[in-house]
């Protein structure tokens, strides 16, 4: 069973989506390591190392996501997690912005998949199957 780490980054307390993601990914056959809300980059990274996770799914709902995920890819590389896929979703930026722009900015930061507001977690399962298998 493949492990994936999920959690909500930064000072963000939006807990509902996180629970749904946990449930949906578990039902899809993944070993979900949920580090919950208020998680730092280090929390995600340490969890991924110990659990041998193949992907990290970062949620950010409260608008400060762009700031919280700065250097996430670099920090993963530093920790030996270069092969781990990085996904980010939720309401990752402040207010309504052109999603193509947003996606590009996050991809430039090293995220493999970027999801806009309202995008269903089920979509991510298709991508997970492609990227890491099941």
């Amino acid at each position, binding site marked *: *069973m493949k*492990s994936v780490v999920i959690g909500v980054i930064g*000072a963000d307390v939006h807990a509902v989506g996180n629970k749904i993601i946990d449930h949906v990914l578990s039902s899809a056959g993944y070993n979900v*390591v949920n580090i919950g809300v*208020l998680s730092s980059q280090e*929390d995600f990274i340490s969890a991924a190392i*110990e*659990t*041998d996770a193949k992907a990290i799914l970062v949620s950010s709902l409260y608008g400060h996501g762009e700031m919280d995920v700065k250097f996430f890819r670099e920090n993963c590389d530093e920790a030996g997690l270069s092969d781990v896929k990085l996904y980010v979703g939720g309401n990752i930026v402040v207010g309504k912005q052109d999603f193509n722009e947003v996606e590009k900015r996050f991809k430039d930061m090293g995220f493999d998949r970027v999801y806009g507001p309202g995008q269903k977690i089920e979509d991510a399962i298709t991508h997970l199957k492609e990227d890491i298998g099941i």
Partner: protein
Amino acid sequence: MDVYLLVDFGSTYTKLTAVDLKSETIVGTSKASTTVQTNVLEGYDKALDRLLRDHPEIDNVSDISACSSAAGGLKMAAIGLVEELTVEAAKRACLGAGAIVDLVFSHHLTKREMKKLAETPIDIILLAGGTDGGNQECIIHNAKKLRELDLDIPIIVAGNKDANDVIDDIFVGAKFEYHIVKNVMPKLKVLDVEEAKHGIRQIFISKIIEAKGIKKAEKKIGEIIMPTPEAVLIAAELLSKGFEEVEGYGELMVIDIGGATTDVHTIGEGYPKRTEVIMKGLQEPFAKRTVEGDLGMRYSANAILSTVSSYEFKQYFDEDDKWEHDIEKSIKRRRENTDFLPTNKHEEDFDNAIAKICCDVSISRHVGHIEVVYTPLGSMYYQTGKDLSDIKYVIGTGGVLISNKDAKKILRQVNKKSNKALELRPNNPSYLLDKSYILASMGLLGQKYPKLALKLMKTYLL
């Protein structure tokens, strides 16, 4: 009169406690220097003679239980993957089993680290790494390295269970004995150290006692059942929880300042006391022990000077202490002559200052900390470690404290507040002393007679 004899082979003294099960009292205690260099039984016999001489009413020893921290105690190496996760979990398992953790390694063992492992006197290695179903690569790598080294040191394997079969194959034909037990961190941040602790204790009983030359004693006194610090931790837990209708003392702390180390034990959940505080890090053990190898009255006296500056050191002298202390010289004297005993007020006061530093600094390291994090949404509070602000009792034990008339003054460092606002120290505890030095014995007695051990502790801790 029949007595149950409790024996503690300590690093310096062999201590005996005689308990009368019928009248539920401690008949007497005695001690003599520990004699591991020649024959441990010499010291034991001497202490027993003293006990029988002072208490002629004893005419039969009906049962004996013993623990030991002689010959350097139980020395361990803890190996894990991520520092704050499985490495920390492995460390806690060792400490909880009463060991001193002399070596700690994370991620892949390197040649340098292997050399260190081979050169350091270690009794048992605890090998962890990965959650169950998680990372196997690291623990397998480290198992291979340990097999290459093939030291005659027993290994407890307590990592990702998925790696266990592979490790069995790697260890085939090895010189060392090994035991595979439950993962110390089966799920992320979840601590499960009971099996590992049990495994450590089994090896301690079956092998370490022998290697340290204490086995000889077993002919006379039966099995030595645990390391002394574990006995203290068990006693503390019993005193905290209570037994059947005999109530316990609730959350409590035990401090043992010794010649080489300072041990702190706390019993309590230590959850945040305020709702706006968020817990970080690995789950904390309910009964937690920490050992500071750089805080001690004699062997580690030197190290104290690298922990506190001489300016800070001076702050630990009493206000009415008007001596001109030469700190460097006084420290050196104690380090070079570890049997040093203060003979006048001047030297006593200096010893008290060292003891206060040991107490203050070990508490700083043991208690949880609050960290304020400034976020886009204002400040938030994170807690790492245990919140011990509601601890009700602080109990002092160990040679330095129990025979010191200023013991409670030293212990009061525990709730010292200055500059330490973010440390979750006990706020307003009552202080007790293990005057008759019975805590370890009560841990032993509690294995068979928990209720009696509890009652005796409630009577004899003052």
